[in-house]
């Protein structure tokens, strides 16, 4: 599969402060759904902005073979994105927003946007400033999802939406994805909601990659052990990278340990992405992965 995104030594600083992004390198192949996961202030939004050519940076960010910061407007015919919800201008009318995107975007399908909006309570003549926050997000998503783009970049797309709308959104996203050859990069704090959607996860911590993992490799690479009573020390000898007490029982996470080795020590299972994230980012031994030759562990 071709690489849609190739990031090499991406570094970004604001002013003279510490780098927000520190020599990041990774690749995203066509047709993947990548979750970019990190704590607040980890650099997720900055990374997405760099991918979209919205902010100057050092290093190389190539999207569809184009350098993002230089060729932004050419890229935007292939990409659609929500950099942040709530950035639709308040003075704009809903019908004008549709007309505008239709006017400037060659891949916009008005019927699809209208169909999505028909299910909402959004009035065509309303100004965006008159809509509720949730409605603005719905409108933005309706506009963006009606664009037939090869790469979809979403930064916290469901922020402020209720559960039912969030579910509906991810359903739409997935059915669109399955219909077309699409690549999706998204960030969210609600990892549980996207757990079954993602094909890849990128953990980002203090501007560096903490993990770059295709979800299908998760079971081979990480093992969760719910330690049986009295087996704590034996399990600890196998060097878990994370340990936590849950209801008086120890839960440990291991990397590159065969499940068979652990089988006698308790209940063995594959950790959830959410647990893995917490473990990776809070474990005392947690250290960012060294900048590795790109695409390592991602050769499909």
């Amino acid at each position: 599969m071709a690489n849609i995104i190739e990031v090499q030594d991406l570094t970004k600083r604001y002013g003279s402060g510490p780098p927000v992004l520190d020599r990041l390198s990774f690749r995203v192949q066509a047709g993947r759904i990548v979750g970019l996961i990190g704590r607040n202030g980890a650099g997720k939004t900055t990374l997405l902005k760099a991918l979209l050519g919205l902010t100057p940076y050092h290093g190389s960010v190539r999207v569809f073979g184009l350098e993002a910061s230089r060729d932004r407007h050419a890229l935007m015919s292939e990409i659609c994105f929500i950099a942040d919800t709530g950035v639709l201008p308040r003075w704009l009318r809903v019908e004008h927003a549709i007309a505008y995107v239709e006017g400037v975007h060659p891949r916009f399908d008005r019927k699809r946007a209208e169909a999505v909006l028909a299910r909402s309570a959004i009035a065509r003549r309303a100004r965006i400033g008159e809509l509720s926050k949730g409605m603005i997000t719905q409108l933005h998503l309706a506009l963006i999802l009606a664009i037939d783009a090869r790469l979809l970049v979403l930064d916290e797309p469901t922020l402020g939406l209720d559960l039912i709308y969030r579910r509906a959104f991810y359903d739409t996203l997935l059915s669109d994805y399955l219909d077309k050859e699409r690549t999706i990069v998204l960030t969210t704090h609600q990892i549980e909601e996207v757990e079954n959607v993602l094909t890849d996860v990128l953990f980002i911590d203090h501007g560096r990659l903490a993990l770059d993992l295709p979800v299908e490799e998760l079971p081979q690479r990480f093992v969760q052990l719910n330690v049986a009573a009295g087996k704590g020390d034996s399990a600890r000898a196998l060097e878990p990278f994370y340990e936590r007490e849950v209801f008086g029982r120890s839960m440990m996470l291991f990397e590159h340990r065969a499940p068979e080795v652990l089988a006698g020590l308790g209940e063995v299972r594959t950790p959830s992405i959410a647990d893995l994230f917490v473990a990776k980012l809070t474990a005392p031994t947690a250290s960012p992965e060294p900048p590795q030759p790109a695409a390592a562990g991602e050769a499909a």
Partner: protein
Amino acid sequence: MRVLLMQIRRELWEHRSLWIAPLLVGILLLAAVATLSQVQFFFGSSSTTVSPLVLMLFGWGIPFYLAAGIVVVVYLLDCLYGERRDRSILFWRSMPVSDTQTVLAKLLVGLVIVPLATFLFAAVTSLFASAILALRGHVQVNGQGSPSWNGLTWLRTQLILLYSLFAVMLWYAPYATYLMLASAWARRSPYAWAFVPPVLLAIFEYMLFGTNYLGRIVERGFNQLVRLAFSLDLQLAFSFGDTAVPAGARVSGRGLPQPMPSRLLESPQLWVGLAAAALMLVVVIRLRRYRDDS
């Protein structure tokens, strides 16, 4: 082209004052001529040989262009600042529209579209107003009676106004791009950025050297333009209703002002100004492209 047209429409959606202001002036003026008991136009000495109709038509345009001038200055100062203030720039830049296209569309709106639309508003209302004035016969130009209507004179006057408009666009292009530069540059208060630095610099220059070179370099007086663009020295003043003749208002010159496009286009001052405008435009585009304070 499709994108450019959409960008222009988008500007007019956002800045409704751009078309409301000239429209309002037209409505107010028509309402005034329809209801006032007497309408007088004064252009100083009544011995002028410029026809009363031409004077009336010139005078008619003045409030339109004043209103348009004000809304255009406000527009240019806001056009690249407002989108950063409300962060909607993130939405605009998510569309496949280049920064160059966006900036050019904004300049085009401020410098060409609004002036031309204002011209059309003024021309159309002048027709309506002339009809009302002819019916009611209550107009006076310089104390003489109602000017007699002449379609050809009307057309020639409109052509001269149109020519003046293009001269004004070229002449004031550096001012327009300067305002856009302030708008693209300012983190807050583009007004302060636009007006304070040049005034301070001029004051410093005067205090330190007692000179005013800066002022002379950037000054692009209207009378100077009129002297360059026309074959006569024309100063207009305008008053409405029953007010007295403004002191010092006068028209010197004989006949219709003659456009002198070649003299204007050969003026180095015009070209220096246009070069400065182009340079500032490049800076504005780069600021929009590389600035990230959202």
